[in-house]
């Protein structure tokens, strides 16, 4: 008899296991199935920096949370409804997040006395009654997997490794997910290992069948597709979207992309991805260090490429002097900082947005650099194009501040029509740009475009325009070395005015205020967009009035930013740092903004922000 199907509008599942259990892969595949099914979704991978911490220990726990729904959602969810715990460590590390009454699927095979004692359980929580407030599904995942693969020519260890596919099969059955995409994926992944391929496929099927036959699950769940706008969709993570955005930037500017970089978590995937796209004219150079990475990107920009360097906070610190050089040279450059917890090595795999002031001010001298920050994983694509527009139009380094949450999180993305992408075609200067009083012409490397204040980009190989640039202060117009006090004052102000002038070309800051009479504004930047937006919805659902604005351009700010801030009685600035944007807003606009902060290496929870907003509203 077919089992009963229950309709749900949304579910949050967290897969948790040992670093070697394949939880990220399981989460990725479930996400892909969910995306193909047409739900809106948002994901949060959460893994340790250690590649393989000692098995079965708390530091080795790796988790993947997925929120999917039949309506549009903004975050990976505050707390899971369903926790899949592959071992005692995963249970111990994650149980505190599972609300009472939540579904708990545990792999009983791993709850041995040895594994239990490793994480400090005196008794087996599955048996001692301590989990009675949860809806526990104890399943011998490992032995069921091994049993289902007994006819294959595999060692026990190899068979056990397929247990994540068994779990995926079971969850796919439980939520009516299509598995054909995962089957295709396995075919590609294990093309050269036919026995492993067959075993994984069999484990996936066995997990599905187990769901159908076991009495432990009396119902299945259906979450209908979300009514998203018409179009073609795919699921995309922030790092992938950023890499695609850079490829697109090369196409739209008609410049070869040159990535000079050094591997660093959580930015390395951008290098991995771009290294695959040589046929788009993308060159990737893995340098000997962070400084060499940006140096090569600057050299390539000088030669007429779109120079890019990708890194995280510690790498930015090392690149600072070179970024200052790019400011002085006035050459295009994109500096991608996928922020992580700091200071120093900090929390390499955890998210934070505490590099804003480093991007803004972390150089010697007056060295203004435009800053833009994407607000969601898929928005990294558009942010990369915008960074390229600013860099090439204004001949300046540009900071693109992503973070660990955007980088690894994913969401559905409406695939853009390439013909509708902005035309960013760059033209190099090939002729003299200056007319002397006697009518003769010359090339002046620091004669500026009156509209943008950008200097000409004349690349080596251009006859007649040979010139020298460098980090020593340059004379206005001629570009000769100049120690003249008045010239330096002028050049410092010109470089600042050039960056300030970008505000003329960026869209006004928009406010989402459905009733139009909110007294409280919540303003954020970067990856907090989802949690802030979800929190505002919660406030409004409860009858509260709140306005939301989100900054994409942080230097310069949109021209109307000050006007908007002054419209509200109270302004709240939630940030995953100790108040960096708030400091800038207070300094620039003299607004008595309230900073709300958290630096836990995890995104804000929307219910937490909801409480903060309600508290401020009640005190207006």
């Amino acid at each position: 008899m077919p089992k009963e199907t229950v309709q749900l509008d949304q579910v949050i599942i967290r897969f948790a296991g040992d670093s070697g259990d394949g939880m990220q892969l399981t989460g990725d595949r479930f996400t892909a199935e969910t995306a193909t099914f047409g739900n809106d979704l948002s994901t949060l991978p959460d893994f340790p920096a250690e590649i393989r911490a000692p098995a079965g220990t708390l530091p080795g726990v790796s988790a993947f949370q997925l929120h999917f729904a039949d309506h549009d959602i903004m975050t990976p969810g505050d707390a899971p409804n369903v926790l899949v715990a592959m071992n005692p460590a995963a249970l111990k590390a994650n149980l505190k997040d599972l609300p009472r009454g939540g579904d708990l699927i545990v792999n009983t095979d791993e709850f041995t006395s040895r594994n239990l004692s490793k994480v400090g359980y005196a008794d087996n929580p599955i048996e001692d009654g301590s989990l009675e407030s949860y809806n526990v599904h104890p399943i011998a995942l490992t032995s069921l997997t091994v049993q289902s693969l007994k006819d294959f020519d595999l060692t026990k260890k190899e068979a056990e490794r397929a247990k994540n596919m068994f779990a995926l099969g079971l969850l796919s059955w439980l939520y009516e997910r299509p598995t054909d995409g995962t089957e295709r994926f396995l075919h590609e992944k294990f093309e050269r290992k036919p026995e492993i391929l067959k075993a994984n496929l069999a484990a996936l099927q066995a997990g599905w069948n187990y769901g159908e036959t076991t009495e432990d699950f009396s119902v299945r769940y259906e979450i209908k597709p979300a009514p998203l706008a018409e179009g073609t969709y795919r699921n995309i993570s922030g790092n992938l979207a950023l890499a695609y955005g850079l490829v697109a930037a090369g196409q739209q500017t008609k410049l070869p992309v040159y990535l000079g970089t050094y591997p660093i978590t959580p930015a390395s995937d951008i290098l991995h991805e771009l290294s695959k796209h040589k046929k788009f004219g993308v060159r990737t150079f893995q340098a000997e260090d962070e400084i060499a990475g940006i140096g090569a990107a600057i050299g390539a920009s000088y030669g007429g490429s779109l120079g890019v360097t990708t890194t995280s906070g510690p790498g930015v610190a090392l690149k600072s002097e070179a970024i200052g050089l790019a400011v002085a040279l006035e050459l295009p450059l994109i500096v991608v900082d996928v922020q992580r917890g700091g200071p120093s090595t900090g929390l390499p795999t955890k998210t934070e947005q505490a590099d804003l002031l480093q991007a803004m001010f972390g150089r010697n001298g007056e060295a203004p650099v435009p800053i833009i920050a994407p607000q969601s994983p898929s928005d990294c694509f558009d942010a990369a194009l915008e960074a390229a527009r600013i860099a090439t139009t204004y001949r300046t380094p540009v900071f693109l501040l992503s973070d660990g949450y955007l980088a690894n999180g994913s969401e559905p993305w409406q695939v853009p029509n390439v013909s509708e992408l902005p035309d960013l075609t760059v033209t190099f200067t090939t002729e003299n740009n200056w007319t002397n009083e006697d009518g003769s012409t010359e090339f002046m490397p620091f004669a500026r475009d009156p509209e943008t204040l950008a200097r000409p980009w004349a690349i080596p190989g251009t006859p007649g325009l040979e010139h020298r640039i460098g980090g020593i202060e340059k004379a206005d117009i001629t570009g000769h070395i100049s120690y003249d006090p008045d010239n330096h004052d002028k050049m410092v102000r010109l470089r600042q005015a050039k960056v300030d002038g970008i505000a003329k070309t960026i869209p006004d800051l928009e406010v989402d205020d459905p009733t139009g009479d909110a007294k409280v504004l919540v303003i954020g930047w970067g990856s907090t967009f989802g949690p802030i937006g979800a929190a505002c919805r919660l406030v409004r659902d409860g009858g509260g009035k709140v306005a939301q604005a989100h900054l994409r351009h942080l230097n310069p700010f949109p021209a109307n930013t000050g006007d908007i801030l002054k419209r509200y009685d109270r302004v709240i600035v939630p940030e995953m740092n100790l108040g960096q944007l708030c400091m800038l807003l207070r300094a620039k606009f003299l607004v008595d903004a309230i900073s709300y902060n958290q630096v836990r290496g995890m995104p804000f929870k929307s219910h937490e922000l909801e409480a903060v907003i309600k508290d401020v509203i009640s005190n207006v």
Partner: protein
Amino acid sequence: MSDTAVPIALKAKDFKSDQEVRWCPGCGDYAILAAVQSFLPELGIPKENICFVSGIGCSSRFPYYLTTYGMHSIHGRAPTIATGLATSRPDLSVWVVTGDGDALSIGGNHLIHALRRNVNLKILLFNNRIYGLTKGQYSPTSEIGKITKSTPMGSLDYPFNPLSLALGAEATFVARTIDSDRKHLTDVLRAAAEHEGSALVEIYQNCNIFNDGAFDLLKDADSRDDELIRLVDGEPIVFGAEGQHAVVRNAHGGLKIVPTDSVDASEIVTHDAHSSDTTTAFALTRLSDPETLHHTPIGVLRHVERPSYDRLMAEQMTIAAENGVGDLQSLLKGSDTWTID
């Protein structure tokens, strides 16, 4: 971009910029600049296709005094910038001008990695064994015990031998020359320019303000014949006014200097810059005394062929595009999509 088919005959003056040269009077850099300006026309390369990149230090002002493209960058990083330029623009002739502080101290890491990759760069390392621009501190090539502003009781640092370092870093072209020997300097520059890949040319350069006479032993008419080992590819290594000193192998796998008439001619080492084995080249670099530079080999120590990084990168780009250039729309779409209508 230039498609100049017939190189225009350029002269030294065509490479002299209108900028006032601001090195100290008597600085060895003047001689090197003059030699480079005279030599560049020989390359037959249009001036717009030549680019000089420098770091920081006295020598790094060099690009301002030429009429080619140029960049005066930041301390120690010139090889990185030049690497980005050379690998993205294989059509250019890219030169790096650096000093012993710039290349071997703050920029040591970049130098060794540029050399091992064999990026198509010609690196001119002006070695004056002192920090000049910061007014007289010891450098990584200063002799141990050197009294300077920062080492009143003598430097404790053991010096680098730049050529030993370059050989250890897998350099394909390694040479040494001297600022005051215009002909030798030009010959070495010519050989470096013809080499595909990284070429490291160490140029002993006198700083007459902070380290005057550092190379007098190798320059003075009285001593130079007995102190300089002039290497000529394919020739037995002998030196001295009468050829009275010869280089032979020692019992430990290295080299030693003996009176020429004390050995059979067949025992004298023949210089082979093209040897794939670096052992003898390395041993040659070790003949010189790290303190006094007594018995210093000059000339091209190593000159071997290995595909340049630039070329290998260009080849990968070509192979990747063999089945057509990329289609952005299909890239963005990927393989796992769904449609809502």
